[in-house]
């Protein structure tokens, strides 16, 4: 029972790292980026490649995955995404689905369609029993990293100057740019950072979620659920939403395996019906 809770939390934390970049881009530019999973996949593949081909240690791979995905995000933002911001939601959806298809096919071409496996270092692969709760070391590691990230993100958002600029831009881009905030720069850095986080999540999740070319499509719905249920105005919303989702998904698959992912979809639809703006939306937002 507690083990399931623990696994669920680890899973939820991972989802949060994967999806929080999406929450920010959606909140900031009102841009529906269905290709977010592609950045996560990039991070995962970078890790797998670096570890198997170049023998880079796992801990070093994580920042590497972050950097590569962030760079990729920055390049794509400057070259492609910025042309699509002002367009209709339909176009944004088409554009990002197109990108996802391209990423999927390209990875398939270069890496093959089979699932990639990550050789975890020994000190992470064990499992120990603490007070009757089976705790996987790797999951504990994931939770620890994610907690650090959440705290860091929260501090950045609430304490630094960049954080306040970002929040201002999310709340009202026009007024913010009128106050001399360079929205483009804020958005570029946020997009790159969000992509980087996705990459980091992909690297961390390569072992737990499974990594193959269909990754962006398979988890697209999960990211969207997190964002839609959690709202885009803070990071607490997506965090709670992803924890909820993670626990519900793990528990659902454990107790009623025949129902599969069914419960998640139903919960999502019901939630969206009752609170179209998300569970944790702040009143008075746009």
């Amino acid at each position, binding site marked *: 029972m507690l083990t399931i809770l623990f696994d669920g939390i680890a899973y939820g934390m991972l989802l949060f790292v994967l999806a929080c970049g999406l929450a920010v881009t959606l909140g900031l530019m009102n841009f529906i980026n269905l290709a977010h999973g592609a950045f996560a996949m990039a991070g995962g593949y970078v890790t797998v490649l670096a570890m198997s081909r170049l023998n880079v240690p796992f801990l070093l791979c994580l920042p590497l995955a972050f950097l590569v995905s962030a760079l990729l995000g920055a390049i794509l933002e400057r070259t492609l995404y910025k042309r699509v911001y002002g367009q209709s939601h339909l176009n944004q959806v088409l554009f990002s689905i*197109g990108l996802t298809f391209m990423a999927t096919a390209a990875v398939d071409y270069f890496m093959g369609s089979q699932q990639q496996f990550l050789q975890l270092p020994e000190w992470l692969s064990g499992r120990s029993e603490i007070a009757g709760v089976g705790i996987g070391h790797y999951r504990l590691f994931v939770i620890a990293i994610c907690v650090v990230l959440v705290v860091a993100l929260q501090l950045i958002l609430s304490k630094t100057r960049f954080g306040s600029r970002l929040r201002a831009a999310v709340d009202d881009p026009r007024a913010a740019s009128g106050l001399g905030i360079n929205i483009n720069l804020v958005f570029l850095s946020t997009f790159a950072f969000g992509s980087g986080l996705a990459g980091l999540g992909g690297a961390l999740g390569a072992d737990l979620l499974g990594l193959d070319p269909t990754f962006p499509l398979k988890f697209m719905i999960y990211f969207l659920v997190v964002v*839609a249920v959690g709202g885009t105005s803070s990071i607490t919303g997506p965090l709670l939403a992803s924890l909820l989702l993670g626990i519900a998904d793990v528990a659902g698959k454990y107790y009623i395996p025949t129902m599969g992912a069914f419960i998640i979809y139903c919960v*999502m639809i019901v939630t969206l019906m009752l609170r179209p703006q998300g569970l944790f939306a702040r009143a008075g937002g746009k």
Partner: protein
Amino acid sequence: MAVATQAPVQEGAAAPSALRALGARWSRIRPFEIAFWVVAIGAAFVLPRGFLLLNELAILALFAVSLDLILGYAGIVSLGHAAFFGLGAYCAALLAKHFGMDPVLGLLISAAISALLGLVTSVLVMRGSDLTRLMVTLGVALILYELANKLDWLTGGADGLTGVTMVPLFGKFEFDLFGRTAYLYSIVVLAILFFIARAIVRSPFGMSLQVVRQNPLRAAAMGVAVNRRRAAVYTLAAAYAGVAGALLAQTTGFASLDVLDFHRSADVMLMLVIGGAGYLYGGIIGAVIFKFMQDWLSGITPQYWQFWIGLLLVVIVVVGHEKLVRPWTWFRRGHGGKQ
């Protein structure tokens, strides 16, 4: 945003006959339309083979037309239109397998069931933003996919529903191996439904849909029941998609999870975008281009044709559909700058 303008509707009341004449001119069937349908239906009697492809084309076209109804006319962005397509397909296959039902009757029942699902889920697309709608439609499609996957006693699960034998059409016309009957059947259904859709979107109801799409707030202020219009067109589109799915199941004698898959929803959206949304023929044109492109690309790179489809989507959006279909504007500096 909501600037009040003097609605020109008032003038219409003063000159109803002029308005009616305008409407008549607007909805008149043009010669090239007649030519197109004559060629399409005539192909069934003239061509020696290639009916399997044509049949698929007709079905995809119907599917795209159905998406056009909600996307092009009502402005509902749906990522889960395959839900209705798949439901129709499974319904038709099951009806044929267990009851040996006449195809046309099976088609009607499948359409009715899909429409019912559309009516029920239309509640879901009325609220919230584009993102909410996107997710809810996607969610509905995923739920159906999971259902079809898990209920393997009914649907055959991942193996698909096999052993569907169709009884002859009207008890007379056998579905032959070359697909001539199948194609004729599909194209006639497409033509009938197309002209019904054409009549609907050119009716006052269709006009009000466009008003709803362009500005829901103002539409409501003008006395259009926004939600009811959306529900109606969503139900209609669901029925259309159900018919398309049913046609596929009936003419191929097979239904598998593929009909509910996400790529169906994405593909049909792509077709509509290639052909252009909002004038019905866009769906047909898009389906033809898409299918030929898919065949051609998967001939060159069997496994990776998705890459090129993706590239096409990105190019369409980044360059703009308007510009892409008008090559003579490529080297002109934008029309007096971007709006």
